[in-house]
Structure formats: C-alpha cells, structure tokens
C-alpha cells in the first residue's frame, strides 16, 4: 500500500478576473522530499504557495494535508510553515522572541519552559546560538534568513513552503545557504517545497522539480530527467541551457529558418520547436548544423560559453566544458558551422 502523501493538490484553480493565475494544478509531495518549484516571474508560483498556506482563496480544487482536506481551513490551523521572501520578521521582537512566537501563540498552547527549550534548540540548529537577544535589525541578511527558517521550523509543521528564500541574499551567501537548507531539512525530515525563479537553484536543490508556466504545470520529475528531456519548448527555453528553434516537422526532418535538422529525439508537444543543449554544440563534425558568426565569449570557471549570431540576429550559445580540453579560438565576425549529433537534438511537435 502506498503511503499517504504529506501534501496533495487536486485541480487547484485561481482566477484573477479573467486571467487564470493557477490552472488546474495537481501534484503531491511525499514525506522527506525536497521539491523545487521553478517558474518565470508571473507564472503563478508564489500564488500557488500562498494558496497552499491558505492566504489565497481558490475558485476550485482541494488541498489535502496528510489525507485531510484543509482547503477551507484558515492559515493558522493548517500546520504548514511558510518562509517569506523578505523574511517578514517581527521588527519589534528580538531574535529569540521571533522564533518563540509560534510555540507561545500557536493554536495549541505550549508551556513557556517548553517553548523556550524548543526555541533554543532550533536556534542552535540554524547556527544562531548566542544571537538570542539581538534585535532583528542588528543582524545580517543571512542571519535573518536563518531566523525566518527557525521561526517556521520550531512549530514543527508537516510541510515547509519557501518563497524564493535565497532571493534576497548575495550570490556567495546563496550558495552557502543552499547547503544549509539541505542539511537542516535532512536533519528534521520535514518535506520542503521551494519556489525559485533560478533554474540552477531548482536543479541543485530538488529531489523532484516542478516547472510552472502561466499557471499550468509544464513538467514534474527528477531534475536530471527535466534537464535532459524538457516536456515542451517553453521548459527548454526556461532551463536556460537549450538553443531553441521555431519551425515544423516535415517527414523525417525538422524544418527551420536555418535549415532542416534530423529529428533526433521526439517529444510530443502542442508547440513545434527544435532544441539542442548549449554543451552539445561543437564547431565541426556532427550530422546537423547551421552557420553562425562568432560574437563573444564568457568564461564561467569550469566552462566557457561562446556566443554566435545567425544572419537574422538569433543568438546561438555553445558551451565548452574545460575538462574536455582547451577552448577553440574564434575570430569575431567570422562565420563557423555549429554542429551536433542527430541524437542530441530534441524535436517537439
């Protein structure tokens, strides 16, 4: 018998006037899972998170927590933790009192000594021991993030929702907090649902990944599956690692403005398009290819990205992993044939 998922969404639909912010969204999150929710801004990912927490009323659909329907319950009776993007710490309370707010004021009253003990335990878990008496405006962004997390975790929710939790931090701190988030979640075993607009963050953090586009779920699966086999051209575009060409399937080839390519992998999709990963392009050989002029390069540390341009101005990116040898050199303005193996191309349609 399959276990009951911690969270189960059935056909969530939310309309803002005529526009559907959420369009029939259904998925479940199992215990101990880290699920990333990836979507461009305006894709409805924050609305979805707020609907799960109970801050938004839905036009239709059900939210089930451990098999129980909580759709009509107010947020304070849902046992779902929410970590806000701007942290939303209580400005008039100390670090300790912020974290202790839930145990002290929650739906089930906790004795003060237990509230204190749990707060101290949680502050230690997030590495803020010794900061108890600080005011929240006296601590750094990373520390605020930890307070927000501890404040949510201390109420022992069934599920934690994180709304772009790393968005307000600088790049260096973001990488460190990624590791911290994973460690804390593994230690507590509570499932996390992490909303982000960054594809690298989503791919790195999630056991599973949901791609949301215009309020609809585009794809749900393991990060590697989604990365290797996007379900539609929009997902491929949004992953930011595919060159995507418009066109149509004609017999055994895909016809674009830049020539016809062999079909390669076929993915059924309402929108026809042809996609090939940046790092599968090479400057020679290959069964498929197109001519493009070299523009510039960007050095990324472990790889280098070369930018080319087709005569009509479309930018083609070629990523060269430096572990595969030194990069080729190109002269600006000169046209090269960029090629790939037929198997590496994905034909949507």
């Amino acid at each position, binding site marked *: 018998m399959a276990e009951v998922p911690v969270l189960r969404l059935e056909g969530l639909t939310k309309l803002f006037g005529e526009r559907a912010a959420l369009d029939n969204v259904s998925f479940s999150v199992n215990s101990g899972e880290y699920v990333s929710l990836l979507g461009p801004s305006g894709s409805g990912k924050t609305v979805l998170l707020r609907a799960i*927490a109970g801050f938004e009323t839905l036009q239709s659909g059900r939210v089930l927590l451990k098999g129980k329907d909580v759709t009509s319950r107010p947020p*304070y009776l849902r046992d779902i933790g929410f970590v*806000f993007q701007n942290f*939303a*710490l209580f400005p008039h309370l100390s670090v300790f009192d912020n974290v202790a707010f839930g145990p002290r004021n929650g739906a089930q009253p906790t004795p003060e000594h237990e509230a204190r003990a749990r707060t101290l335990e949680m502050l230690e878990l997030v590495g803020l021991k010794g900061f108890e008496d600080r005011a929240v405006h006296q601590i750094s962004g990373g520390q605020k993030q930890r307070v927000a997390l501890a404040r949510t975790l201390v109420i022992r929710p069934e599920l934690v929702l994180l709304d772009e939790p790393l968005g307000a931090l600088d790049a260096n701190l973001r990488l460190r907090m990624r590791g911290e988030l994973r460690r804390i979640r593994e230690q507590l075993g509570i499932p996390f649902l992490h909303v982000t607009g960054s594809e690298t963050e989503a791919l790195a953090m999630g056991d599973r990944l949901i791609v949301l586009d215009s309020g609809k779920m585009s794809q749900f699966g393991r990060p590697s599956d989604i990365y290797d086999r996007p379900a539609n051209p929009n997902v491929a575009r949004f992953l930011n690692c595919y060159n995507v060409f418009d066109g149509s399937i004609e017999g055994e080839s895909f016809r674009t403005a830049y020539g016809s390519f062999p079909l390669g992998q076929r993915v059924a999709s309402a929108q026809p398009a042809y996609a090939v990963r940046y790092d599968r392009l090479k400057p020679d050989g290959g069964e498929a290819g197109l001519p493009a002029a070299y523009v510039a390069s960007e050095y990324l540390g472990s790889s280098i990205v070369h930018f080319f341009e087709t005569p009509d101005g479309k930018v083609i990116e070629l990523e060269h992993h430096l572990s595969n040898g030194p990069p080729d050199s190109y002269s600006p303005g000169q046209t090269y044939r960029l090629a790939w193996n037929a198997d590496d191309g994905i034909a949507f349609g």
Partner: protein
Amino acid sequence: MTTTELSASAIEMAPQSSSKSGGAYLLIGPAVVWMTLFLVVPMAMIVYVSFWTQTTFKIESTLTLASWRTFFASDTYLSSLWTTIRIWLTVLAATFFVGYPTALFVGLFVKNKTLQTALLVLCVIPFWTSFLIRVVAWRPMLGKEGAINILLMKAGIIHQPIEALLFTELSVVIGMTQIYVVFMVGPIAFMLGRIDPNILEAARDLGAGFWRVLRKIIFPLSLPGVVVGAIFVTVMVLGEFATSAALSGRKVNLLGNIIVTQVGSLKWALASVVGVILTTIMAIVIAGLLLVVDLKKEL
C-alpha cells in the same frame, strides 16, 4: 603612507564640513528667532508674572507667592484641577477606544490606497465648519428635547427623556471625543498602514488567531501612532475651555475656563499660575508618553 594621506584629507575636509553645517544652521535661524520672540519669551513672562503682586485693580512686579497660595488653598481651583485631569483621561480613553478600531479598519483592512485616503478625508470633514459651530451643534442633539431623546422615545426604549445628556460632564466628554478623535485616528492609521502585510501573514501562519495577532503584533507596531495621537489629544484637551463652557452650562470648569475668567477680570497673576500649572502637567504627560515609545526609531 595611507595613514598620512587619510589624515591629510581629513584636515582638508574639516573646515569644509564645518562651514557647510554653519550654512545649515542659518536655515533654522528665522524659526529660532520667531519661536524665541513669540514662544520662549512669553512663556518665561507667564512664569514671572505668576509671582507678581495682584491687588484688586492693578498688578505690580513685586515678587510674592500670594497667587500660588490662593490657588492651592481654594477648593474651587483644586476641584477644577481634578475635573480637568478626570475629563482629560476620560476623553483620552474614549478617543482611543473609538479611534483605534476606526484606524484598524482604515489602515489595515482597506487595501485600496485611494479609498484609504478618502476615508481619512471623511474624518476631517467636521473641520470644514468652525470650532464653535461644531460644539454648539451638539446642543440640539443632546438636549432634553433633542434628537437623541426624541429617537429613543419614539423607539420606545425610554419613556422619560434622559436629562443627563446635556449640561453635564458627559456632554463635555461626548463633544470633545467627537472633535478630537480624528487626531487619534490619523497617526494610528498611518502606523498601521506601514505594517508589512507579510508580517501579519507570517504570524497567522505560525498559528496565531486574529486576537493574538492584534495583541502581539499589530498593537505593539502601532504604539508609536497611539503615543503621537495621545500627545495631540492631551495638548488640545488640557487647553480646552470652549467645549466645556458651551456643553456644560458652565457647570464644568476646566483650568482653561479659569484662565479665561481670570484674564477677563484682569487677574493676570492668578491666570499665570493656572497657565504654569497647565503647561507643567502637559510637559510631564508628553515626557511620560515619549518614554513609552522611542519615537526616534520611527522617524
């Protein structure tokens, strides 16, 4: 090398920055002159005059404690002091209990900024008429044959008109609360409007129901507004004389009424004594209120 450079640039900077702040001080010059001439000097004069010798028809600058003794020896004056304090505290409480829920509605539950502004403007509409008209308009409302009594009798709730409504302390409190409640609503609504909605959502998400959120989050965050509102109301009620004169039938004598009477009969020394006492009470109250909240943090 770096240190020498730094100190050299510091020396260069110093005169420049001091001349800059010298220019800045000039900016408040007119205000300082104005306030000194028309506030500081008159206030010092009042304190000085309160020690002058008052005879029936004239006043001399010979220093004496006579007027102070008169004030503290008279039951009339002392009871007027207690009446002033009682009415002030009652009006303060009434404006808070009427004003806070109003501010909560306007500042927190009305999400539309335009509507919010419109509602606040609505609160100010009574100020479009003169102060005296606003006060006197309460008479046909509260009187024995006034609107409230007529309505209550027509509705069969009472059979005898309630006479306590007009020309009592109650009518003074009703009148003052109506006039001054807006000064409580404004600052509180302003503070409430500045609360990040995510903070309230976070509190609800952590399991706190509405009353908990109100008590633990909303109220503490709006406290600076309450303090500013309380200061406004305090300053205005403690200095009041017109409302009590018009709505109490001269039965309620506030310190303000005493000053008016004394000045009217050219008893400058005693009027000054009352003025000094009133100003001292205000100063103590305001200082106390400012201790409650660190307003510097809010500005």
